[in-house]
């Protein structure tokens, strides 16, 4: 998504979503699809109380995973991109692991690391890790030799190359990778939070509301998780627009 998302277009999108939701709830006319008129006040009220805490717990987990993944994946991606010899060795392995849905390792990670916050964060971090790794690697290997040589001829040694070429070249790649993978991250979070935790939107939606048939509250939770995804996406998008101005030339 490279075209500019304005405040107005975002608002239009939200209003359209609510309109379709309302129409569907009228057509279906069953408790499993309550009207937004009932859910939205519940959501707004809940965000200042219990639901807000679940929201914060989920946000903290995703953000921790994002940071963890970036710390490991970005330097490694740079390294592989600039050292084709190593990339040729590990490239096939990455190519095989990359498309595997990492959520299937959930039981393994739970057994190895225990069912803790850290194991949930690790699972999400692994997913984001491969996204960043691949995008940054491809970006770094796309830096033409001529570019490096001419910057070298301006006097740059290894440190200046890192500061003025590799870092600014990989930052947009990291952001793009994050923006693309943040949806999957929230989806995995939803599943990971269903077991053995007492805070988190996944827990709230499945254990606290769905299983006790509190459908309107459940939808408040769904809205919370939706909002989390949207906020992360547009948050990263707005940073991208500041950092990678050259990609958004009109």
């Amino acid at each position: 998504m490279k075209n500019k998302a304005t405040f107005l277009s975002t608002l239009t999108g939200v209003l359209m979503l609510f309109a379709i939701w309302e129409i569907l709830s009228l057509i279906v006319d069953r408790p499993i699809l309550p009207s937004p008129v009932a859910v939205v006040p519940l959501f707004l009220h809940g965000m200042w109380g219990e639901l807000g805490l679940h929201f914060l717990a989920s946000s903290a987990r995703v953000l921790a995973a994002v940071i963890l993944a970036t710390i490991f994946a970005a330097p490694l991606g740079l390294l592989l991109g600039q050292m084709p010899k190593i990339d040729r060795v590990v490239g096939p392995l990455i190519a095989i692991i990359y498309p595997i849905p990492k959520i299937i390792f959930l039981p393994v990670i739970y057994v190895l690391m225990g069912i803790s916050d850290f194991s949930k964060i690790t699972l999400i971090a692994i997913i984001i890790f491969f996204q960043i790794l691949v995008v940054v690697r491809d970006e770094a290997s796309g830096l033409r030799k001529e570019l490096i040589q001419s910057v070298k001829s301006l006097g740059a040694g290894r440190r200046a190359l890192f500061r003025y070429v590799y870092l600014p070249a990989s930052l947009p790649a990291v952001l793009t990778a994050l923006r693309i993978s943040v949806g999957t991250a929230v989806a995995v979070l939803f599943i990971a939070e269903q077991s053995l935790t007492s805070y988190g939107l996944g827990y709230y939606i499945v254990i606290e509301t769905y299983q006790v048939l509190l459908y309107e509250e459940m939808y408040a939770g769904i809205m919370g998780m939706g909002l989390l995804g949207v906020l992360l996406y547009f948050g990263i998008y707005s940073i991208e627009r500041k950092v990678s101005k050259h990609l958004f030339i009109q």
Partner: protein
Amino acid sequence: MISLEDLSFSHGDGGDIFKNFNLTIEPGESWTVIGPSGCGKTTLLFLVAGLKKPLGGIVRVGGEKIQRPRPSTGLVLQDHGLLPWATIYENTRLGLKIRHYYGADGKHSPVDVEFDREKEEDRVHHWLSWLGIDHLKDMYPSQLSRGQRQRAAIARTLVLEPDLLLMDEPFSALDAPIREELQKVMNSFHKQSRLTSLTVTHDIEEAVVLGEKILVLSESCNSQAQVIDNHLFAAMDERNSPEFRKKCAQLHEILSGQRQISRGALQKGGRG
């Protein structure tokens, strides 16, 4: 300014490009290097630039032995090498930024470099407007034409006030009218500055226009420098004069003659 002493170089696959090659370039001279592709023209330039190391012999620039890129040598490549995420202005300042980053360490920037923001700013604007791209300074490289990008690459190099300018096929990716225009620009630059320069080209006309001395390299191993004196240098307006044509024809003859010789050598099983 430049002296190559008993220079030897070969590619990994064993074919020698230079063997005991000697050449001296005096300060203020404008040289062009021409020869068939694969003859080592770019290699020669990169050896002088310090981006490649000779197998044997010594490359000296300004008296000092070259082992790594020398801070006061300017290099312009065929591919402009501008940072795609930086504006033209930021790109033009890149070399200055790198110098600030390291300080006057003599390795990455000249020992006697002075850091004066105001003078630097003046220089940036001077070269941007001298090359006619001042109005584009807030644009990104992708928004510029090839010729404009190449102008920006030249500005970025000249802002550092080099005492030697190396160019590798700087205009070969450009359309003919823009190429001629930039050749004119570089001619008048050389007349004004008397900056020592070495330009690699595969274009015979360009070699005659840009070089007061033309070094002709051959496809096979180079051990003797073949240099042609060229008083038609900078004769942009005489491109169609008989004398200019004659010079080009002479150069053409030398180049095609060489090819026959090296082919003959190959047939006899000699070194390629």
